[in-house]
């Protein structure tokens, strides 16, 4: 407890050196402070409060230091409000307040005492502005104030943040902590931290030993230290050992960066598959060139937006509702398109192409008129944001993981429908031989409408997934129509497995090429490759065989 406060008080006025900062943090971390000091200095608190209404950010930084040092019980809520950007000051007397919207202007309350101060005009209060420097200072201060019972997760993050600032001075504290620490994951980081601190040691053997311990560590700051060591260390043997450790690290880094590229490729592929799979039904099975396919995706995305508007308090579940809703809405629009336009144009691909292209423009402009040309904001539920951290340099983003899983579910469900249900049987029958199917009593017109509705509904479902990745706006569909056709044609028309393989391989190929060719050239190369491939195998990766192929 006392250590904390003393450190605050001996702190130089200006910028603290990073070494000092690391030490002080360590002290804080290991003494498990509750941060409320016995000799709370109320003048520090008042001084800090007064500085908050200053315009200069460095003065506000000083204010935060003073506030924390004061140990006043209102500091934590005050800093939290400030960090959330909800702290204001009254222009007339610089009093720090919070505000609420009122009919005319704002209703304000004193931020410390909670005393109501009546209503003021819109221009009478001003925000206590914060910038990035202050924001990180606030986060740090709040975390420290909340440290209390010491959650191992917080300890670990704090240690990781310190890795680049450690010096030989930090060693005793680290070692002391190492003896009492219970949590395995924290111990792991502690060992690395100790080794990093030992790198500064004046004894050659200690440094060599530390290097051995650091071999294979993936923390970027460890790597940066080793790089400086290979150039600067006084001892040739140590330099050599550092180089050796670095080589091990580099090879592991390479391994993980390849894995990362693979993941990116698969996730891009899953997006391609989602966008293309509806088309694989309408184009692949029915042979309809539907240029409005992208707009059906867009309708699905807008359905998500509307669902979120309807249930603003349950964003977490909105996507679960949006998936069936988007399927129904896009499916119905699809059926309407089939009944209204396409059924008159069967067997005339060129006219179908033009008519559906026209439709796509109509749908786009309709969305512009109904929802405005501006992009709409679709929120990402909490459970979909963030990453699954595997190690310091390799982490998978959760939203992409969910989308890969979702894509596979959609694929296998669709596969099941086509192979195992009566509708699927009829769809396959009609697409293989319309006349024969009709002779067997299949209502081919009804099947056409349902098939098109199914394909369109799947497009809508893809729209829900895309709303989590990209803009929801009138142009959403255009961005995916070319890619979708590319995947279906490459995979082989009329083959769902082909679509899956084509989507994944195009995604991975694109991502493998991107680092050295750039995003633009990678796309071009993929297109060129597909053109060449189609020259060689006009029916794609998995051509339909037998009688069905002739139709």
């Amino acid at each position, binding site marked *: 407890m006392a250590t904390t406060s003393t450190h605050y008080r001996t702190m130089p006025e200006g910028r603290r050196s990073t070494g000092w900062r690391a030490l002080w943090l360590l002290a804080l971390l290991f003494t498990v402070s509750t941060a409320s000091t016995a000799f709370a200095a109320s003048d520090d608190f008042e001084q800090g409060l007064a500085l908050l209404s200053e315009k200069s*950010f460095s003065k506000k930084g000083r204010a935060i230091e003073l506030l924390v040092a004061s140990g006043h019980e209102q500091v934590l809520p005050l800093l939290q409000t400030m960090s*959330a*950007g909800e702290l204001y000051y009254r222009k007339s007397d610089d009093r720090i307040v919070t505000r609420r919207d009122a009919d005319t202007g704002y209703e304000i309350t004193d931020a410390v005492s909670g005393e109501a101060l009546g209503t003021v005009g819109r*221009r009478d209060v*001003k*925000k206590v*502005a*914060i*910038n*990035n420097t202050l*924001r*990180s200072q606030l*986060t740090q201060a709040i975390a420290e104030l909340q440290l209390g019972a010491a959650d191992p997760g917080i300890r670990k993050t704090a240690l990781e943040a310190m890795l*680049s600032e450690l010096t030989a001075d930090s060693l005793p504290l680290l070692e002391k902590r190492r003896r009492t620490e219970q949590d395995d994951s924290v111990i792991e980081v502690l060992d690395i931290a100790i080794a990093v601190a030992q790198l500064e040691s004046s004894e050659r053997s200690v440094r060599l030993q530390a290097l051995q311990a650091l071999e294979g560590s993936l923390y*970027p*700051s460890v790597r*940066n230290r080793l790089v400086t060591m290979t150039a600067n260390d006084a001892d040739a043997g140590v330099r050599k050992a550092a180089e050796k450790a670095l080589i091990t690290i580099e090879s592991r880094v390479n391994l993980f*960066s390849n894995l*990362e*590229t693979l993941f*990116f490729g698969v*996730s*891009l592929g899953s*997006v391609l598959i989602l966008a293309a799979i509806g088309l694989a039904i309408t184009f692949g099975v029915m042979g309809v060139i539907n240029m409005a396919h992208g707009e059906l995706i867009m309708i699905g995305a807008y359905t998500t937006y509307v669902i979120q508007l309807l249930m603003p308090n349950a964003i977490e579940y909105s996507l679960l509702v949006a998936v069936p809703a988007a399927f129904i809405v896009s499916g119905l629009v699809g059926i309407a398109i089939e009944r209204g336009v396409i059924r008159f144009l069967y067997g005339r691909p060129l006219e179908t192409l033009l008519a559906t292209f026209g439709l796509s423009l109509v749908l786009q*402009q309709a969305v*512009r008129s109904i929802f405005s*040309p*501006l*992009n*709409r*904001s*679709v*929120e*990402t539920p909490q459970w979909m*944001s*963030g*990453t699954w951290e595997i190690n310091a*340099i390799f*982490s998978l*983003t*959760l*939203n*992409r993981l969910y989308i890969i899983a979702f894509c596979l579910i959609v694929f296998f469900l669709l596969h099941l429908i086509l192979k195992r249900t009566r509708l699927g049987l009829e769809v396959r029958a009609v697409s293989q031989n319309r006349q024969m199917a009709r002779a067997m009593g299949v209502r081919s017109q009804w099947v056409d409408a349902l098939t098109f509705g199914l394909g369109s509904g799947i497009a809508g479902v893809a729209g829900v997934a895309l709303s989590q*990745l*990209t*803009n929801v*706006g*009138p*142009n959403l569909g255009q*961005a995916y129509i070319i890619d979708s056709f590319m995947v279906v044609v490459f995979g082989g028309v009329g083959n769902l497995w082909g679509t899956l393989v084509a989507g994944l391989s195009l995604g991975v190929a694109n*991502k493998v090429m*991107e*680092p050295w060719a*750039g*995003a*633009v050239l990678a*796309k071009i190369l993929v297109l060129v490759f597909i053109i060449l491939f189609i020259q060689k195998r006009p029916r794609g990766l998995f051509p339909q065989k037998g009688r069905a192929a002739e139709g």
Partner: protein
Amino acid sequence: MKMKQLASGIALAMMASASMAADDTIKVGVLHSLSGTMAISETTLKDTMQMLIEEQNKQGGLLGKKLEAVVVDPASNWPLFAEKARELVEKNGVDAIFGCWTSVSRKSVLPVVEELDTVLFYPVQYEGEESSKNVFYTGAAPNQQAIPAVDYLMNELGVERWVLAGTDYVYPRTTNKILEAYLKGKGVADKDIMINYTPFGHSDWQSIVADVKKFGSAGKKTAVVSTINGDANVPFYKELGNQGISAEDIPVVAFSVGEEELSGIDTKPLVGHLAAWNYFMSVDTEANDEFIQAWHAYIGDEKRVTNDPMEAHYIGFKMWVEAVKKAGTTDPAAVQDAIIGVSVPNLTGGYATMAPNHHITKPVLIGEIQDDGQFEVVWSTSGTVLGDAWSDFLPGSKDLIADWRAPLSCGNYNVKTGKCSGQNF
């Protein structure tokens, strides 16, 4: 015979009414896309112009006449911009055009406005390297946006490694060329600059963000200078958030992200990232308050935001009005002479002056994105900065100046050779 007389009578009457109308009002052309890709940004500017014209009419119009907005829709189609510009001048007889957003649309309109010798007010930040006799650039040139932003990062945040990320077209390419030359001039090494271009509407940012993350983990403070265009920004920021890069680790300063773009997205992952503009809606001045109130009243929606290009149109329109008053006529040639040196108040508490190079003076503001989709100004230039038509950091243009006052009257005068290349732009 009777029929013919009647017909000619009607024709005469119609002609008379047409010329009456022409005499009664001063026509102002508004050339912004209302459909297609660019409708997202340009529709707002059309509304702004209509609002400004309505306000001017409430104050008694101009030269005793009413103003009339002639709105056309070039539908985000670049060649159509040129056609519609011609239609505005030749068919509708407008005296000035306010319009264009993308550089390519401006380049498409350029030959037409020069041939017909009218005036065009262009309200968007652009790459510079141009000064036409007929165009007035009320948006920012690179030295009014990009260079000060880089200075801010370098001096205030101590950034040493730079990622220049942009969409693959003329504005980012030119701006990044200027920035690269500028950074190298400041002693930044080649290996500390990473340049990356992506196609329009790029949505899969995983690898690029991972690269940025790797580039930024070398132990030096890193920042991204983004000239990524409109739509592609959202997935970019989302990916940054998802991969756990916050503004405190690697700040992104953007030149194309404004209030309007932010109003369409979930701003949580963007908080703390930066943008450089010459105006923010959050700027606290009387003039800005009035403008925002007028805008809300006109558009009938309290939630609509204002942004930098809107202010540019506000300034451009006020300047044109002043110039017409000064010249006593709306004749474009007279306005072109009269407008140089005209000063009008801007919305951030200063004055904008039209310089002889057809660019204006502007303050430069750096703002941090807040969770309500607004910007908090964290830095600004102490005074205003004059737009530089020809960048001082590109070898091809550092000797060029633009001065449209007599006797020089040249948009690209080479001070070394003492020659005007004769091109109009």
